[in-house]
Every structure is written in structure tokens, then in C-alpha cells.
């Protein structure tokens, strides 16, 4: 379709076969195709190269109480403990007297996401206000775990969530269930 036409170099009227010298027709379709492919590649890689930023807000550090014990309404608080080996323990309410849990789940669609989606619908119905999530990473969870759980907050559209400090009896619970090792 796309062509470069070269002049044949004058017509010869002697009737001899001049097929070989009759204008080189180069099909440029392939070159245009390649050029567009390269453009698309560079367009996409220069914008994808920029890393993404995920905003996080932590509560004010309380100089008097450095361990950050926030008073929250227990009946609508889901506490999520990040253990080792990419496992999560969650419970609803207070640890000593939980309304649900503690239960061990995985990250992602088959685990914590389903739990959160369920609770985010249930809690406004039973208590009339939104769900609060408190995330308490343990010392043996990784940065990846932290990002994943904050991601889940965005995916399930949890409005109220906060990072907190894990408590000793929660650490004990993780140890008992083998979720507090290297």
C-alpha cells in the first residue's frame, strides 16, 4: 500500500524487456508499523516509570502515652494483626471479649478482603455507624504486608482506618498460633 516510487529512468521504445530496471517499489507499511510500535512503547514506559505514591495518615504521637492507645468504639472496630508468614489475625470488638474472632486469614481476595467486605456492610446495619479498622503490624510482618493491608483498605473503600501499636496479649496470641516467628 505505502510505496516509494523511483523513476524508471526513461522509457525505452525499442520493445526490449526492461522489467528489472522498472522503478523500485518499496513497501513502507512495515516501517510505519514499527515506528508506531516504538512510539507507543516510549509513550507508555516514560509515564509508567514514575512510581506511585500511596497516602498514609497516622495518629498524632501522644508524648504522654507513647504506646498510642486510642479509645475507639469497640463494637464497630475490626482489629487486624499482621503476623509472620503473610498471615492475618482479625477480631471484632475487644480482645478480652470479642464479638467475633480472633480468626486467622490470608491476604487478598480469598481472605481478609471478604471479611472486610462483609463487615463493612454488616456494621452500619447493626450499630448505625461506619466500621473502624485498626491495623497493628507485628515485628515479624514485612513492608509488603503493610502495603497490602493498606491496599485492601482502598479496595474495600474503608473510610476510617489507622495504624496502631500491637499489644502484648496480641503478640502472645500470635506466638501461640505460630505466627510470630522469623
Amino acid at each position, binding site marked *: 500500500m505505502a510505496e516509494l516510487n523511483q523513476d524508471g529512468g526513461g522509457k525505452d521504445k525499442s520493445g526490449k524487456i526492461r522489467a528489472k530496471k522498472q522503478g523500485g517499489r518499496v513497501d513502507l507499511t512495515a516501517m510505519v508499523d514499527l*515506528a508506531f510500535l516504538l512510539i507507543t512503547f516510549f509513550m507508555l514506559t516514560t509515564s509508567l516509570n514514575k512510581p*506511585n*505514591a500511596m497516602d*498514609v*495518615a497516622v*495518629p498524632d*504521637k501522644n508524648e504522654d502515652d507513647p504506646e498510642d492507645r486510642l479509645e475507639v468504639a469497640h463494637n464497630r472496630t475490626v482489629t487486624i494483626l499482621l503476623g509472620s508468614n503473610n498471615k492475618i489475625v482479625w477480631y471484632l470488638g475487644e480482645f478480652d471479649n470479642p464479638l467475633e474472632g480472633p480468626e486467622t486469614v490470608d491476604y487478598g481476595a480469598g481472605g481478609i478482603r471478604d471479611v472486610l467486605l462483609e463487615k463493612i456492610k454488616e456494621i452500619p446495619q447493626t450499630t448505625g455507624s461506619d466500621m473502624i479498622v485498626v491495623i497493628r503490624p507485628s515485628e515479624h510482618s514485612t*513492608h509488603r504486608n503493610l502495603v497490602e493491608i493498606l*491496599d485492601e483498605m482502598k479496595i474495600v473503600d474503608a473510610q476510617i482506618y489507622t495504624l496502631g501499636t500491637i499489644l502484648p496479649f496480641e503478640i502472645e496470641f500470635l506466638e501461640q498460633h505460630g505466627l510470630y516467628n522469623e
Partner: protein
Amino acid sequence: MARAKVKRASTTIDMTAMCDVSFLLLTFFVLTATARQPEPLPVDTPASVTQIKVPDDNFGMITVGEGGKLFFGITGPQTRVRMLELMSEKYQIPFTQEEKARFSLMDSFGVPIGNLKQLIAMDMNDRTRAGLQPGIPNDTTKNLTNEMFHWIHSARTATAQLNDVQMRISIKGDADEKYPDIKKVIDILQSQDLNKFSLITSLKSL
């Protein structure tokens, strides 16, 4: 008998112009792809669904990797020079104009301030050699020993002085870093009353 002959219209399109434009666009994109400085501490960030891009200026990045080593870098050459001047006053270490100029080209660094002159004097390729830079010293106090605290504070002051906006800080952590190392950085930020920051992630397909 005359046969109705449909004259076949020529369907050849001259593509030279389109080819020309596409190479022009290609050249444009190749040239506007800015060359990145090699990172002194390569870090593999975890993935997330967030699509908010990092801002181009007034932005500071704390890199956490390799067992809790801290590296720091900010955008804007003038801001970098101002930050260096503030640190130079605090720690009583003078820097020459040339050193300041070289420092303004450094994207990210991770050495105690005592070794900063040496680092500035080095060549770009030598600086980014693996294992060379040990990270910025840090602890839980606000003293001069906690250099990370003071670098961040100077960076924020410099941004506020020069550009009159609040600097945005982000943490770029390796995916396999343990939480206590990240918590350390979050604590340093909280002790400066900085409660909002970002975590750098790569794109994840849901």
C-alpha cells in the same frame, strides 16, 4: 457490443507524510524520556492498586532497604543546596561552592554527614557501587546524633523558605523489609509532627 467497463480507481496512498510524522513523534518521546540516575540502594517496592503519581517537585523520599539502611533524597537542585547549607550550620561542617554544586545533582544519598564531603568528591559511578554507602544514622531522639531527623527537618525548612509550600515526604521501602525498620522512620516523622506521608509502590493489577 460495448461492455460497461468500471474504471478501477487507484488505491495507492502515499504514506511518506505519515511515516515522517511518526518518526518525528518517536524522536520527541525518545528525547523527553529523562535519563534516571542509578540508585545507590536498589529497592523492590511492593505493589498496590493506587494510581496516584509521585509529584515532580517539593518532594522528599526516604529509602529503606537492606536491613534498615536509610537513604534520603529530595527534588530540586536549589532546595538541595539550601538543605545542605542548613545542615552545614547545624553540624558546623563548611562546604565549598563547588561541593554544593555537585551535591545539588545527587538524587539520593546515605552516608553520615562526616563522610559527605568524600561522597561528593567521588564520581557518579563510584557512589552507586553496591555496599558503599552505609545509610544515614538515626535513633529515637532529636539530638544531632539522629541525622535523619535533621536532614528531613532541613529539607522541610528549605522547601518552605524557597518555595513557600509544604514538602511532601514519602517512604520507599523494600517489600521484604521488616515492619520495625519502617516503624522507625514513621516515628522519626511523627516526632516532627509529620503525620501524613506516602508509601511508594509499584502498580498492581487487581
